[in-house]
């Protein structure tokens, strides 16, 4: 029996007069690939931010492996095993690629500033080990040989993969990916999809995605939750979601269900 790695119970986030996320329940099983979809402005990134600790919900609770996340700082949450990427890539642009990954490993290292100044054994071993592991992650995401390139001079697709490598540096149990295939061509999208699958298959990392590309979502997800105007309107397997008329209407508008049926190839 897989327990849920994330449980959101009635999570509600309000900004001024706007309820961005409204009593949303989400249960994410361990080592699954879970997608959150919905039209623009549905509250997906807000929910993400609640799960990763950037926002504190006004009502409701988020539990990670049974522990509530309320009141924890984002760095504490990172140490617990949650890492994320961002919708508009937020790398440490003036650091090199490998250094970005090394920062990802930060909370797992114990080397202190005194170690650094005195060049102690701990400093030397940790630097070496962290670089080795960092290179492994870089190679894993497909950035072989680019370790010393400044992050800002990497092409777009590589930057997205670097963000993932940085997140992996923390050795997370849960990885939150915010629109990982945005702006990618079909080839890159396929590679990214394969990468995401490998992360779950080989390392057991649970992945929660926000995605707009329906091919990706339907092809890779074990579970999907659909948000619209801050409410969760559907929850289930890709097949169930595809057939759900409420979901179709959320995307296509009223009367959309009929339209979809008319043009549907799934008879």
């Amino acid at each position, binding site marked *: 029996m897989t327990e849920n790695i994330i449980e959101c119970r009635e999570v509600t986030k309000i900004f001024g007069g706007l309820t961005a996320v409204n009593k949303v329940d989400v249960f994410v099983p361990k080592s699954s690939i879970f997608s959150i979809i919905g039209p623009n402005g549905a509250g997906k990134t807000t929910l993400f931010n609640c799960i990763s600790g950037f926002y504190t919900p006004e009502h409701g609770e988020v539990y990670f492996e049974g522990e509530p996340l309320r009141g924890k700082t984002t760095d504490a949450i990172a140490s617990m095993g949650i890492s994320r990427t*961002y919708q508009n890539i937020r790398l440490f642009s003036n650091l090199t690629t490998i*250094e970005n990954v090394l*920062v990802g490993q930060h909370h797992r*290292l114990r*080397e202190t500033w005194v170690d650094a100044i005195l060049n102690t054994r701990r400093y030397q071993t940790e630097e070496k080990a*962290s670089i080795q592991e960092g290179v492994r992650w870089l190679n894993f995401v497909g950035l072989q040989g680019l370790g010393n390139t400044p992050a800002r001079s990497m092409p777009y697709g590589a930057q997205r993969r670097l963000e993932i490598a940085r997140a992996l540096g923390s050795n997370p149990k849960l990885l939150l990916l915010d629109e990982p295939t945005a702006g990618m061509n079909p080839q890159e999208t396929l590679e990214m999809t394969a990468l995401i699958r490998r992360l779950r298959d080989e390392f057991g990392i649970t992945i929660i995605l926000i995605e707009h590309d329906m091919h990706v979502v339907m092809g890779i997800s074990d579970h999907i939750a659909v948000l619209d105007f801050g409410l969760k309107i559907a929850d289930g397997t890709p097949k169930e979601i595809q057939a759900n008329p409420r979901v179709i209407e959320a995307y296509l508008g009223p009367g959309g269900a009929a339209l979809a049926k008319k043009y549907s190839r799934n008879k």
Partner: protein
Amino acid sequence: MKKTYLRQSFDTGIIFGIVHIFCVLIAFNAMLGSLLAKIVNVTSSLTSPAVGALIAYAVILGLWAGIASALRQRELSDGKRLLASLVTGSSSGLLAAVLVGIFQLMLILNINPRDYLTNLSLPFMQACLYSLPGLLGILANFFTFLISAFVGGLLVVGWNLHGFASIRHQINNAPKNWIAKLRSGSAKKQLIQKYVFYALLFVLIAILPLEWGSYWNYVIGTVGLYVIMGLGLNIIVGLSGQLVLGYIAFFAIGAYTMALLNAPIPHNLMWGFWPALVLAILLAALAGFLLGLPLMRLRGDYLAIVTLGFGEIIRILLNSDLLTSFSGGPRGVQGIHGPTIFGQVFSDVNYMYLIILAVALAMYVYNRLQHSRTGRAWLAIREDETVARATGVNTNKYKLLALVIGAGFAGLAGAISAAMNQFIGPGDQSLMASINVLCEIIVGGMGNIPGTLLGAFALKGLPELLREVENFRMLAFGALLVAMMILRPEGLIPSQRPTLELPEETPPATSSTLTDAAKIKPPEENPHD
């Protein structure tokens, strides 16, 4: 199309004209003139400048105006570009003429504006008129600009635009290219380069202080102290990205610690140089800690103002009567005893070596920190604090750490300064001193050692060499800060991350000895490779 370029040239000339008027009113033209005069070994003072010097200044300004104007009109034909520079010359010349016309009027009517515009003494105004009577002086000013601008245009057109653009491009990129060349190549080659460089430096350092006399020991010694402070501030500002404006307060704490523990008045404790030095560093670091603790959550701009306030509080307190019995009040502390070697008080040569040692120590510590997990954490905080925190960096702790270590550097510099000068007073601990250090690292290059060295030499060494510039130093700083932020915010020598030694093939999984927060197996060798 025709109208716009003429209009543009006219406006360019107006801008140059306004700058010219400003320069005249602050006697910048006289200063520049006296610098030029020095080159040709002619005397020219600020109050009675030599006419030739002023003409030289005007010619330079006019040339620049003409060149700028012609360069701007890249697309147009040569003739039109010459016309552009001519128009610029005439509009700036017009303003110049109006200015000296007013001067002439005042001379005739015997009005002395000196009470209001301090630089406009009668001899000064006459010199601006090139000592020519009546309308001649006014016309001379106009034509100087017109002709110089035209010549500038000729230079651009004759020498071909590309010449200038590529020269400017080269100058812009020279430090970058040069440094890139130095930094390129394997990590090993860089290491060898570094060793050679330091060996050379060591030889120089061993010999020079004995040879060049106490004046230079004092100047370079002060530069050295500024390097230490620059490195300390660079840890706070350059590495961790926190703008702190009251940095001099930590210097003051270090200096006063040394002073109060080693001077006959007011306390006559005589603890000795070295214990006081250690205590000075610790107290400064402690002050950084206490100040920073409540402030770590503040936004960058708030932090700047609060640290400014802190610096001012320290200055006011040191200057007040309230603390005079404790810290010497406005007159400061005198007669500070320095260290002794073999029973003899330190000479200026000894101090020089001490400072060199301290600078070396500071550079070493800075370098180690820069290339460590701590340094990377700081840089991550600077780049994007929110994301750094979400990636697992305890931002509050590291920001505080940067402040504490940076403060310690300042304490070190302060203590040595107090002992070296045998005096410390509240007047030195002003906001301007903090801004001096800030300028140094911003202009030189934020976050790297060569940049700090360059900044310290430029900002402390140059004014020593160019005494005439002294009055205009702060003005230049202000303009320089604005200009640097707009043109080159990373400083003259931009920081570049080091080339780390990276394993060529995918290393085996077993070599990882990192503690794992999550009990997930580390990435194994890819079975498909």
